[in-house]
């Protein structure tokens, strides 16, 4: 065959798309509480999320595909987060950063939603109060692993199935 003389490789469109997706995760710029301070370190030279293609924080949900819930979610904030999530373009993912976003944390009271997964679907939970930037990086890597493997449970699909 003509092609035999030049280097080439074979893949599927699906695999290629997943590779592209996981290599350029764009998180959304917003912080909810003290965890956000740790989250900001992600793009600093020390932690450098650019190594994993996840450094482009975008201030508009339309341009982001990863939502890092960095802090406790109040009942007043819940509809706002819900709407921001709905405004993000598919495919999209969510990381619940820290104890409060995952379960309400120490705030077992009237004002705080007991885990953001009661409002939007979550792909990766990060323990800690607050988690270290390394832990959040690990969450991003885990998310990349799920995207690469084509995990059907990732993202919004599972959430629709269980709702």
């Amino acid at each position, binding site marked *: 065959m003509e092609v035999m003389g030049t280097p080439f490789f074979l893949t599927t469109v699906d695999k290629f798309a997943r590779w592209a997706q996981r290599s350029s995760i764009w998180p959304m710029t917003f912080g909810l509480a003290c965890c956000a301070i740790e989250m900001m370190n992600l793009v600093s030279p020390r932690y450098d999320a650019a190594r994993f293609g996840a450094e482009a924080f975008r201030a508009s949900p339309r341009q982001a595909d990863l939502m890092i819930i960095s802090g406790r979610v109040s009942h007043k904030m819940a*509809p706002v987060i819900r709407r921001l999530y709905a405004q993000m373009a598919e495919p999209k993912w969510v990381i619940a950063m820290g104890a409060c976003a995952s379960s309400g944390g120490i705030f077992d009271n*009237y004002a705080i939603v007991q885990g953001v997964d009661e*409002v939007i679907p979550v792909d990766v939970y990060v323990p800690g109060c607050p988690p270290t930037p390394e832990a959040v990086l690990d969450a991003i890597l885990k998310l990349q692993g799920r995207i690469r493997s084509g995990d059907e449970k990732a993202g919004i699909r599972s959430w*629709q199935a269980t709702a």
Partner: protein
Amino acid sequence: MAGDGLSGTARQGPQAAGAAAASVRAALETVGRLAQRFGDAVEPLPASLDMPVVKVRPDALRDVARALKDDGYAMLLDVGGVDYLGRRPPQERFEVVYHFLDVRGLRRIRVRVPLPEAEPVVPTLSDLWPSANWAEREIFDLFGIRFEGHPDLRRILMPDDWEGHPLRKDYPLRGPRQRGTPQALRQRFFPLRLDGPPADGPGGQLQAPAAGAQDGSPARKEGGA
């Protein structure tokens, strides 16, 4: 509260201490004048650590506040609410506490207004001191104390559709039972609709879901009665 009164004097030496004592004395004179002018409506309380304190009946509050303002207390530093649940008599369960500062003379005075449990209402000071506006809204939001004559008495911290006043001592810490449970939130937010406006509507208002509205139909909001 001991900002420039006590802790400050320890650092600044005897001269500052003398000045602070003089301003407390001056504020005490204000208390005496108020008691003289308003009679029963004003009751001087034992002096607190940091500033003189008076108890004022709610119907006299506006006159007292105006007198204080004319006397040089130009600044309303803070308005706070307190719930003394179980206090006898129940006519004094709630208190609204005002802190006034005379910026020139460095005099401070605290005004406490006890309010009844049944109908805690107090006249607004937001027309005299605009700084009272949001503070009064916050007290209304968290304690359910109404401020008569307030131009815009809405909740300021809690969601608009919230029920109850969370800083009351008899408010359940975890909130009303039906609110905040995973079931209630699921009814409110699920399923997420991607092809239209969110199910909870533009204001994020909680609508009581209709009995058969579990199918996530777009008409849920109208279906809730």
